[in-house]
């Protein structure tokens, strides 16, 4: 296990290095941030001074070297716009995004798993047709459109929930979250549901496919031959077997929830990472964009590793490479 983890960490470092190269060189092609930073009517001397101050007058490879040295000591540079360390800015925004993504994940499993299993157990039922029809909609309707519709229906027309923003937060067990106040929850419901819809549909389809596949296996028939109650068969025999692929996919998908919460955050003005990076891209705030992309890459690397370890815990047949036996 330890050897496996170590090897994966080494691979991750290489991936991160290559990614930083790509990100850094690509962002230099996008545009000149100095245009955004100075008043267009400034004197050429003024513009040159700004360029020098930010180190943008030097060749790309020198800039990259400086960035790399900084990165190794944990400094990803200062935001051009805010003048503060990119990492600190991201750290401020991260809890909001994490909260949104976690809520969406919880919603997608608690809603999607039972529906999917139900659909798999009763392939011909009316309920199944409705569930599967709904899941097709969930996968095909664009998130941004649905988000807007949800705002119109639940906030504007019905007036049940706030339109946008993050509500009051409070601290519980050392975690600052809006899930602990009523106002915070009211603000969280719409964006989290919006972000979760696609994943709900995905979990339904995975759970249904898994259920249909596993229920046809001999050990289910043997479990029935033992006289077990249907409830026990579903919970003790079906669930652990269909959870393996679902956990794998959701582990990776959690990364996409965080990385691509951008759209939902923009629509609901959720003050998270996504909104930070969208603003940074618009303003050509290079250090933020680079730091964000490297963060996303790291996130996926870590999640992949966690998924592999979870896999080994869920399925005793999987022994990680480098493990004994």
């Amino acid at each position, binding site marked *: 296990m330890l050897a496996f983890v170590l090897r994966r960490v080494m691979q991750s470092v290489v991936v991160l290095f290559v990614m930083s190269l790509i990100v850094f060189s690509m962002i230099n092609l996008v545009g000149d941030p100095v245009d955004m930073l100075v008043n267009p009517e400034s004197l050429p001397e003024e513009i040159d001074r700004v360029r020098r101050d930010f180190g943008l007058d030097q060749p790309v490879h020198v800039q990259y070297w400086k960035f790399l040295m900084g990165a190794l000591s944990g400094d990803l540079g200062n935001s051009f716009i805010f003048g503060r360390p990119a990492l600190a800015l991201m750290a401020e925004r991260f809890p909001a995004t994490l909260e949104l993504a976690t809520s969406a994940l919880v919603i997608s499993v608690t809603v999607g798993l039972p529906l999917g299993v139900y659909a798999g157990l009763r392939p011909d039922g009316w309920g199944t047709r409705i569930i599967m029809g709904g899941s097709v909609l969930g996968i095909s309707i664009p998130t941004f459109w649905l988000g807007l519709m949800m705002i119109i229906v639940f906030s504007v027309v019905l007036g049940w929930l706030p339109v946008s923003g993050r509500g009051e937060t409070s601290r519980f067990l050392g975690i600052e979250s809006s899930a602990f106040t009523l106002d915070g929850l009211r603000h969280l419901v719409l964006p989290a549901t919006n972000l979760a819809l696609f994943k709900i549909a995905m979990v339904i389809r995975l759970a249904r496919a898994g259920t249909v596949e596993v229920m046809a*296996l*001999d*050990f289910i*028939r*043997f*479990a*029935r*031959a*033992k*006289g*077990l*109650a*249907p409830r*026990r068969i579903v919970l*003790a*025999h079906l669930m*652990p*077997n269909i959870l*393996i692929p679902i956990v794998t996919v959701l582990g990776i998908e959690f990364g996409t929830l965080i990385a691509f919460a951008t759209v939902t955050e923009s629509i609901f003005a959720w003050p998270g990472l996504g909104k930070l990076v969208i603003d940074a891209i618009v303003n050509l705030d290079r250090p933020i964009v680079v730091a964000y992309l490297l963060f996303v890459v790291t996130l996926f690397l870590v999640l992949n590793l966690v998924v592999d370890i979870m896999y080994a815990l*869920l*399925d*005793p*047949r999987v022994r990680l490479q480098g493990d004994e036996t």
Partner: protein
Amino acid sequence: MTRTDLLSIQGLRTEFSTPDGSLAAVNGVDLEVARGDVLGIVGESGSGKTVLGLSIMGLVDRPGRVTAGRIAFDGTDVTVFSEAQWQGLRGNRIAMIFQDPTTSLNPVQRIGTQMIEAIQAHRDISSDAARQIVREAMVRVGINSPDERLEAYPHQFSGGMRQRVVIAIALLNEPDLIIADEPTTALDVTVQSQILRDMRRLCRDSGSALIWISHDLGVVAQIAHRVAVMYAGRIVEQGATVELLKSPSHPYTAGLMASMPANSPRGQRLISIPGGLPQLSNMPRGCAFAPRCARATEACETPPDLSFTTPGHAVRCVFPLHVGAALDECD
């Protein structure tokens, strides 16, 4: 042995609805099994023997279902049972062992968990008490150091060990009847004969009746008191094992016996029955075996009734073979 019937099946018909219409995999089967009896059911793949076993367990899944007949278990007709009533019966009074031990156990549950739940499904006892029963059952089927084994997962066991576990599970609640569907087919020959011997001993010790389903007449001959030969969903011959093997009356039974390697002269080609099972969707009007039978005449185009050659030896054939004529007749 008192011949009180434990299981009595009359006119059982199990049909599967398909796009081509309804097909009867089991077609008018009558069977009787007494307490402590060992009945062998022999037939080719597709003859309906597995579906027969599943019908007795109430485990025929859609699109199949039992459409006619009566299955009386210990005097009660179980064909009208609700799912809850079945649950009380399955694994408790009737147990079933399936063909492939590698797939009968849940790969992600510990062996112990899978055994204990089989007891707790039927008896309200503590996990510790159940564990004790499980431990004894493991030892009974020849698994040493049960405590260690109970913590293991199925993939850590060999095929033979897994089948022993499955057999141990079947025996846990001391059922009146065990249905074993080719339980040794997936195992190699040495393990096969061990399991066979153990099963015979375990059933004798516990007084359970046993229905042993197999395509191998040789295996059945070793274990069964009585044999029923199945062909295309029907029982074509039934009788005491010794009697049936000594003088098979149905040409199909005779063909099965002749095609056993042990019965062929050394150095000659093995004998086989020409042709194959008729398709369920395209059954002959009369005797289903007629198209493959050397003795068939026009008279075989009407379905033959069951007739008795001697008391307890029944055959469904228009021209049953006579004593001693078996081996020469079919070539």
